[in-house]
């Protein structure tokens, strides 16, 4: 089947090419659902990009107002000639007196002349329900809708009919359902706008497409300065995954070594960890290195103000300010941004395009989960990663582990399955010290160290420490590295506990690799073993005291 591309971002992907060319499409949705924008944008792209002039027939809105409103979109409307995009006034005359049966031949005759004159290929009947409301009875409506349909077929126009009344419902003016329209058209599209948790959520769904496969699920979309932007979908035709063998420095030579050369360009890197585990620091290290190489970068923070981030990072010797001043780095605090995850994603895409960014930090990615998406719509975070990949943009994102249970889609474990590299940060509180650890849980396509690395945040930045495994396989951190004076028995027990702990941790990592929740349980188990070791050690010491006291007890004759 021949398709007429709408040019609407993302829509032609779900419609596998566009609307049926030379056929009629019905677009339904309530007030404010985006029908008029959808229809108008299809005409704008037709006239501007595909050499297909179009006519926009207004049954409800004043064409002058509509044109003015459409200027708000960056469509270059002023550059499109009247002969390529014609707004046709067809609002009913309020003073018109009615006397008996009418038909719409006058309209069709006038449009026919206009179509010939312009060589029009596309036409929109916007708010056809308003015209049909002029009709006296259902039989007349049916007759005139068929007249319109026959005319459209004869003219071979790619047509969009919009209706704010669902044709399967009775109309507010008491007409019975006009569901025959749905049977008549070749393609039927539903648009929906609802408020979820205070954020506007728009969805598009193709409910019918004669002679063509299509993406059946409801897909989120947003309306931005460029017009409609339908969510990026896995496996869509544009999702050309750019596989790159090029490595990029993580910004830290030791971490580069652990990853055997750094991150892949175009990869998605996820840092997980509890608050305060230096996730943002690792993102900033990468971004600073990128800026130094001359790569435009974008840093989006959903938690802090720009100046706060810059100041905080200065304390670990990462100075982003020169990069901001030179224009290499654009910092955006999206904390104040209202709207859904979809809106945030659109904002990120727009910012990235404007800035020409090749590296993006999203801190944290979980902020994108504020989407009201339900059902089978792919998660916003996943789509962001897919989109970045298709553009060859490297994305570093963070995700807090402790919001795992509050999220519905940006769950670290879910994102981790699509992220190329997953690095987990943690710390232990031990002997009054906070010992930081980094483990590379997965790094797709690269060799990588499976060693849990200890590092410190110093005023000179991140410092990795040489791994000390002298305690029989367990990693000694912090003050444990010092000389130890303990009884052989205690050491033995500690080793056993340490072995068990290490085994539990390894099991944990295996589970993480499988993307399973088991990791958290394994960590919990490790903690329990530690606790048990401490309890046993304490009990043992008490036992020693008991034994020493026993002879005394004997003497007392107890």
């Amino acid at each position, binding site marked *: 089947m021949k398709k007429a591309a709408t040019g609407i971002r993302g829509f032609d992907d779900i419609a596998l090419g566009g609307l049926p060319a030379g056929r009629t499409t019905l677009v339904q949705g309530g007030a404010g659902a985006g029908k008029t924008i959808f229809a108008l944008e299809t005409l704008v792209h037709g006239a501007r990009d595909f050499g297909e002039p179009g006519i926009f027939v207004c049954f409800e809105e004043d064409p002058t107002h509509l044109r003015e409103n459409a200027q708000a979109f960056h469509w270059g409307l002023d550059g499109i000639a009247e002969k390529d995009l014609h707004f046709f006034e067809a609002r009913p005359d309020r*003073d018109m007196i009615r006397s008996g049966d009418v038909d719409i031949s006058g309209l069709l005759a006038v449009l026919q*002349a206009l179509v010939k004159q312009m060589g029009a290929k596309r036409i929109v009947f916007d708010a056809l329900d308003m015209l049909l409301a002029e009709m006296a009875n259902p039989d007349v409506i049916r007759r005139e809708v068929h007249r319109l349909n026959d005319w459209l077929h004869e003219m071979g126009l790619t047509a969009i009919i919009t209706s704010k009344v669902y044709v399967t419902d009775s109309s507010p003016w008491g007409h019975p359902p006009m569901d025959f329209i749905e049977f008549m058209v070749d393609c039927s599209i539903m648009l929906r706008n609802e408020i979820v948790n205070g954020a506007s959520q728009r969805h598009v769904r193709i409910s019918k497409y004669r002679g063509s496969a299509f993406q059946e699920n409801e897909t989120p979309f947003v309306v931005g300065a460029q017009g409609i932007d339908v969510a990026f979908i896995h496996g869509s035709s544009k999702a050309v995954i750019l596989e790159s063998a090029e490595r990029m420095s993580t910004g830290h030579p030791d971490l580069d070594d652990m990853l055997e050369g750094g991150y892949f360009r175009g990869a998605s890197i996820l840092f997980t960890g509890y608050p305060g585990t230096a996730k943002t620091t690792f993102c900033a290290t990468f971004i600073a290195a990128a800026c130094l190489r001359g790569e435009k970068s974008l840093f989006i923070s959903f938690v802090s103000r720009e100046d706060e981030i810059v100041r905080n990072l200065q304390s670990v010797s990462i100075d982003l300010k020169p990069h901001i001043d030179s224009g290499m780095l654009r910092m955006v605090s999206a904390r104040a941004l209202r709207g859904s995850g979809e809106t945030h994603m659109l904002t990120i895409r727009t910012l990235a395009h404007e800035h020409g960014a090749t590296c993006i930090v999203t801190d944290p990615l979980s902020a994108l989960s504020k989407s009201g998406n339900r059902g089978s719509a792919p998660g916003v975070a996943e789509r962001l990663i897919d989109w970045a990949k298709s553009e060859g943009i490297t994305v570093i994102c963070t995700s807090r582990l402790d919001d795992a249970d509050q999220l519905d889609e940006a769950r670290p474990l879910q994102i981790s399955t699509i992220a190329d590299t997953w690095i987990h940060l943690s710390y232990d509180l031990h002997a009054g010290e906070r010992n930081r650890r980094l483990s590379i849980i997965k790094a797709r396509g690269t060799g990588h160290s499976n060693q849990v690395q200890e590092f410190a945040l110093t005023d000179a930045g991140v410092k990795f420490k040489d791994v000390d495994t002298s305690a029989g396989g367990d990693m000694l951190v912090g003050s444990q590295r010092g000389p130890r004076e303990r009884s052989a028995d205690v050491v033995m027990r500690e080793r056993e506990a340490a072995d068990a702990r290490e085994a539990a941790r390894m099991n944990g990592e295996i589970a993480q690799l499988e993307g399973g929740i088991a990791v958290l349980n394994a960590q919990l188990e490790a903690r329990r073993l530690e606790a048990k070791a401490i309890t046993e050690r304490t009990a043992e010491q008490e036992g020693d005291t008991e034994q020493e006291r026993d002879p005394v007890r004997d003497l007392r004759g107890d």
Partner: protein
Amino acid sequence: MIELKHPVEPALAPNHTVVRFRLYVAGNLPNSRRAVANLRAYCAEYLPGRYELEILDVYEVPERALEDRIALTPQLLAETAHGTRRIAGDLSDKASLVDAIDTTRVG
């Protein structure tokens, strides 16, 4: 059959104000044919010798229809001394026609 183009009919009575009718029809559709017949009957009864009638087919002169913003057909434009009235339909409702044109005030 319907007269097309713009025949002016019938003879005028010179000293009276006339009502100018422009009736847009669409080809040979039944409601268009009825509109012509109904308008003729009305004129004969209420405006003998005091009207001009121009019958236009939207398919033949779409530019005129565009100019007059004709969407629904048949449609009658009646120019009276008191302004232009638009009446859409086959003019089967004579009462509304009488009311719209307000013949008592004509001339």
